């Protein structure tokens, strides 16, 4: 006999409160804000580069739109659908890479991906926007959400 140990569970109110605490670890204000009010969230089919970031496991799909002018990423925007974490991380990408040179971009990509990499060595002076995604590595299967668009851009730049 294995009684469900009801006393091991919390009441509705306790659940809601506890969840709030736990979830704030993963869903930092930065993430919720960028999920609800994403940066440069617009389709631009005519862009010189249209880059797709797709996660076949969960169906998240974002497209990045931009031009490369004088070795700089410009007119960067994004559109698509995904979870709060992938959407916010794409929004942060757009916010931080607009107008950056390709060399700077590589450094920024590295710095962001390092935050989510479980083996990454903690760097100093990390952007607060980036740090917000650190907890993703502690949630099963969620680090890919944080890196989805970043990985796609990295791959594009490496192949270029």
């Amino acid at each position, binding site marked *: 006999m294995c009684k469900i140990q009801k006393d091991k569970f919390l009441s*509705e109110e306790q659940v809601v409160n506890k969840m709030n605490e736990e979830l704030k670890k993963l869903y930092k204000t930065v993430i919720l804000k960028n999920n609800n009010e994403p940066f440069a969230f617009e389709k631009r089919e005519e862009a010189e580069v249209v880059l797709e970031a797709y996660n076949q496991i969960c169906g998240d799909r974002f497209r990045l739109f931009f031009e490369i002018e004088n070795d700089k990423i410009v007119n960067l925007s994004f559109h698509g659908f995904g979870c709060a974490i992938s959407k916010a991380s794409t929004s942060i990408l757009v916010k931080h890479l607009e107008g950056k040179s390709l060399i700077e971009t590589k450094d920024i990509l590295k710095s962001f991906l390092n935050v989510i990499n479980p083996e990454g060595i903690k760097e100093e002076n990390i952007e607060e926007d980036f740090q917000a995604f650190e907890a993703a590595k502690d949630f099963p299967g969620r680090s890919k959400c944080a890196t989805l668009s970043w990985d796609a851009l990295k791959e594009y730049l490496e192949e270029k």
Partner: protein
Amino acid sequence: MIDPVNIRGEFPIFINNPDLIYFDNAATTQKPAMVIDGIKDYYENHNSNIHRGIYDLAASTTKKYEVVRQKVADFIGAPNEQSIVYTTGTTAGINLVASSFLSHQLQAGDEILISAMEHHANLIPWQMLCEAKGAILKVIPINQDGTIEKPLYKALLSPKTKMVALVHVSNSLGTINPIAEMIEIAHDHGIPVLIDGAQSVAHYEIDVKALDVDFFVFSGHKIFGPTGVGILYGKEEHLKKMHPINFGGDMIKNVTFKKTSFLDGPQKFEAGTTNIAGIIGLGYAIDYLNQFDKKEIQKYLKHLRTYAVNKMLEINGLRIIGSINNGNNSTDQAGSIISFVMDGIHPHDIATILGVEKIAVRAGNHCTQPLMDFLELPGTTRASFTIYNTPFEIDKMIDALKGIQQFFN
């Protein structure tokens, strides 16, 4: 009567994780001690290869292994054990039928008919075969409530249709398809039918003989058995005509360097050393399930579903996909699977948050990407119940869903 609390006690995983709420039974069920101990006993006391040794141990293992074939036959109402092929799962069974039964008959321009709610396992094998043969894969659309469009099913059958392949219970929507009727309609046109029973065998009485179905496939791991084993039931007349697609030991009558002749029975499809422990474990899983009356199981699961649906629909912005599920107590067209979405909250976020509460649900396209495209959804969150789940656990999920809503709004 189903006593979920007692049943829970028969599953070591719940003893070891007393606060685990497991609502991902459509992906795989947990295993009762009876199955785990049975497999352990096999390895500790009986391990040997089958059909090969003449010493006692090998002979008794062969017997233990072959007894399961009869057990499976009885479990699904097959006329005899010769119609039961051991496979590695539902996927393998469908692929075997596609490659070994249909491949030789299919001509360019022929058609295979499936439904819009098929699992990838009952879609891609047919699609590949169609590509190879220049045949056409046709799809029966579904209604917004998640049921098959029956008039279109009839309209899509033609003299060119060479196979109908249908899921019994949809793993994404929980819809129970009227397979008896659909098989009969196909047979009126002389078309063979394969039924994907992956989601139905655990909870519904299956009688392949009464259904007159040509092929029926399922997996052991979704009926409280181990992973890596499954069953293909085929009418003997079909199995006799089918050629093996794997070749090796344990399947032959006679081998010379010039020519090989194969065994007649299902063993001809089981080349090489199979998952003996898994098959034996499947036997125990069937013994386990046989303790319960399927009607009682259905009654209990219907109770759970209704209980959950009614509470879920009270949550603002929550929508159940395939409205066949919506609250109607009398519906017999919905199983124990509930797929839902919440306004503005991604399924993946819901599943992560429920995970924090130790509630295991699935999020995503559930291996039915074309169905999600059809419903214009990126995915859903899915809760799937079985006999060890309780209304109390559902309450906990509802609390958590309310918490999620508060958090995101």
